């Protein structure tokens, strides 16, 4: 039996190794930086937070501050964004029966970006929301976009075949993209800020942003996880899924909405970070097989670990300059993807 077959048939091993990678990535990402924090201290600090214990005296208070105020929220946010994009990507690829689909294919990220860029451009600040105006407006714009896409797709073709949905998504992406270009063209002082956001970043967001993404992450992931068997059926085609007993219309809506919630929330807190939602599910499927029952949770683990490491690279590679994380994911993701593609063509 080949190694790949062994991997595909051994799910315990899959979960253990993916989880181990995630933990190692997380500890490394927290530990490495302008000030190196010993791993043992990190474990102690996190342990104290989790179990609500007083932090042991021997841990330097500077470490405590760096870990709990700066690095831990940053790494967790990177992880949540990576996880959201990866599971959404896996679900969209299965639903659209296209291993090249990504979470941005339906125009959701363009919608979220328009929301965020407009907030920055008009200097919007909604009372009570304050700093959260941007992520909240961004998620609202993302949800509006997916609703519009679905509404139009349904108007065009009542059965909402995936081809129709993809085409509608592309139309909306281009349309909303031109709005973003328009705002950039008109912009003056906020250009740096807008460009910074568009390129994607998880820095200096703090715990509050984690509070924003977590509820969407939980709801979206749960909706997708309970749809994993239907995703398996639907990846053989919608008619096939119906014949197997899947209520395709209902399930498709659930998956589209859940995927859009995840994507919208991720874009809202970190900007449009490309390639994670494309490469991670693809890689996970190559390693552990296409069964969505396992593919979805494994994508969460792998996606989280991957984005934590990418963020680490983005802030250390030419320290002290912090590169936009979206640039790094694209720089790593595109060649990796090209390699996968070439390999696939060969086999």
């Amino acid at each position: 039996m080949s190694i790949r077959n062994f991997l595909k048939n051994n799910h315990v091993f899959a979960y253990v190794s993916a989880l181990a990678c995630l933990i190692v990535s997380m500890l490394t990402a927290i530990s490495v930086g302008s000030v190196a924090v010993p791993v043992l201290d990190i474990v102690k600090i996190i342990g104290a937070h989790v179990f609500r214990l007083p932090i042991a005296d021997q841990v330097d208070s500077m470490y405590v501050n760096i870990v709990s105020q700066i690095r831990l929220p940053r790494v967790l946010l990177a992880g949540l964004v990576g996880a959201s994009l990866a599971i959404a990507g896996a679900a969209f690829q299965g639903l659209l029966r296209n291993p090249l689909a990504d979470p941005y294919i339906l125009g959701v990220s363009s919608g979220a970006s328009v929301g965020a860029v407009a907030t920055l451009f008009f200097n919007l600040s909604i009372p009570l929301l304050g700093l959260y105006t941007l992520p909240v407006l961004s998620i609202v714009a993302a949800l509006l976009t997916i609703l519009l896409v679905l509404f139009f797709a349904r108007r065009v073709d009542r059965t909402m075949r995936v081809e129709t949905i993809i085409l509608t998504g592309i139309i909306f992406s281009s349309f909303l993209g031109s709005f973003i270009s328009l705002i950039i063209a008109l912009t003056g002082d906020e250009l740096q800020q807008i460009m910074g956001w568009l390129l994607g970043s998880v820095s200096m967001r703090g715990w509050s942003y984690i509070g924003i993404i977590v509820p969407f992450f939980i709801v979206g992931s749960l909706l997708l996880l309970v749809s994993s068997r239907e995703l398996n059926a639907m990846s053989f085609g919608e008619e096939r899924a119906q014949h197997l007993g899947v209520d395709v219309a209902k399930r498709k809506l659930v998956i589209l909405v859940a995927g859009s919630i995840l994507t919208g929330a991720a874009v809202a807190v970190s900007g449009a970070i490309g390639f994670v939602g494309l490469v991670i599910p693809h890689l996970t499927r190559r390693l552990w097989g296409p069964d969505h029952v396992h593919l979805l949770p494994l994508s969460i683990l792998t996606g989280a670990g991957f984005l934590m490491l990418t963020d680490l690279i983005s802030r250390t590679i030419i320290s002290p300059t912090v590169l936009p994380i979206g640039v790094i994911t694209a720089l790593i993701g595109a060649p990796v993807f090209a390699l996968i593609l070439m390999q696939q063509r060969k086999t």
Partner: protein
Amino acid sequence: MLDLEYVSGGYTEHPVINDVNFSVSPGEFFGILGPNGSGKTTLLKMISGIIPCTSGTIQLNKRDINEFSRKMLAKRMAVLPQLTAHAFAYTVRETVALGRYAHHQGFFQSWTSEDERVLQTVMEQTNITVFQHQTVQQLSGGEQQRVFLAQALAQQPDLLLLDEPTNHLDLAYQKNLLDLLKKEVSQEGLTVVSIFHDLNLASLYCDRLLLLHEGRERVIHTPDSVLTEDLIKEVYKTNVTRYPHPAVAKPQMHLLPEKVDGSARTVTIGPSMLNIKEAHITLTSPIPLRTLSSGVCGSGIGWHNTLVNRHVPDDYDCSDPEAEMQQYLETNGFDPAQTVGMMTAVQLADAAYSLWEKDGVSLFTVVTAGVGNATDSARSVGMTHSATPGTINIWLIINGHVTDEAYIQAIMTATEAKAQALREMDIKDKRTNTIATGTSTDSILVASTQQGGHSPYAGTATKLGHVIGQSVYSETKKAITRYQAR
């Protein structure tokens, strides 16, 4: 089981299917036929609930299919689609296991021992257990189709719908798949409704056929009544000939290709094509002749362009004359697939032949005759080896178009003429001392060019029959006279 009442529907405003009405009983193998665009696939999608009916009802076990939830329907009805490509590399086992989806309640129900039992059974039935850990893409088309059949069977349906299940499969896989289905039908009581592209496969496997024409049912009946030349010509707008299957009591339809060769030359088979040597007489035709013969090889009905009557020694004795004859033909440069071969012990130089052209009939008759074994068929007591063996071999080559009936009548007429010739020449069966009707090893061949004038019959009342009788009578007499002169 399945009842359709006045069903209409389709994709667009104009219904593709109009007022279709039929019932399928449990354990039936029901075929749907029709040319492209006749609405076969639409009808199947309406039965499986993918396309709604605009009017009429479709009932499964006396309940409207719209009353079923998708899951409930999937437990009763499964669909085997046409083979398509798939994006992801699922293993065979994972793919088949998806067939159990409808039997699971909610997300948290786990894989039960019943699921596993069904999975193992259907994989055994479809003979794919050995592939279970391979991915579906690694398999050949026929194997993939078996995997999806296993998936459909894992749903444990009462009714299985198939859309051209043998599309893209090569010959052996087509047969294996349909045999498997037929077995499920007869042993497990499965009901099958299947679209067929191939009329002959449908004829072989289906109990009843529905012939669709422009979205309406043209006829629903047994293959014998549906597959008639007139109906197929009307619906498919093409000429076919119907012929019985050689081994199964089902009709088969044969296409008639349009004659492309514009300068179709008319060939007249005559003495110039005959070549008489000491070892064999051959007749080489520039076009294949439709032959009905009792030769050693190339016998029965067929198309052949070479006729060989070979001289064998008096003591020729071979346990497998057909193989020996084939070898003889090959060593002498004849293609056994294109040749009718006969044997005789008489001297071939004594052969009698002429081209008979009379009353618009053109017939070339060749006879070699020996009467050492002359036998009275009415009193015959079995074959004996005579010291002077002999056989009467008759070739009748008709330059014209002849029906199957005419072939049979030609043989009757020729045999009667031969018997008359023997009678007049007072040839006797030595054992019974009565007038012989032939020899114990006579052969006959009737061939025709299948060009020119049609001859539906060849009995003695017809011109063709008349010429056959006359020519066989006189050529046989000539040949026997030469034989006796030696």
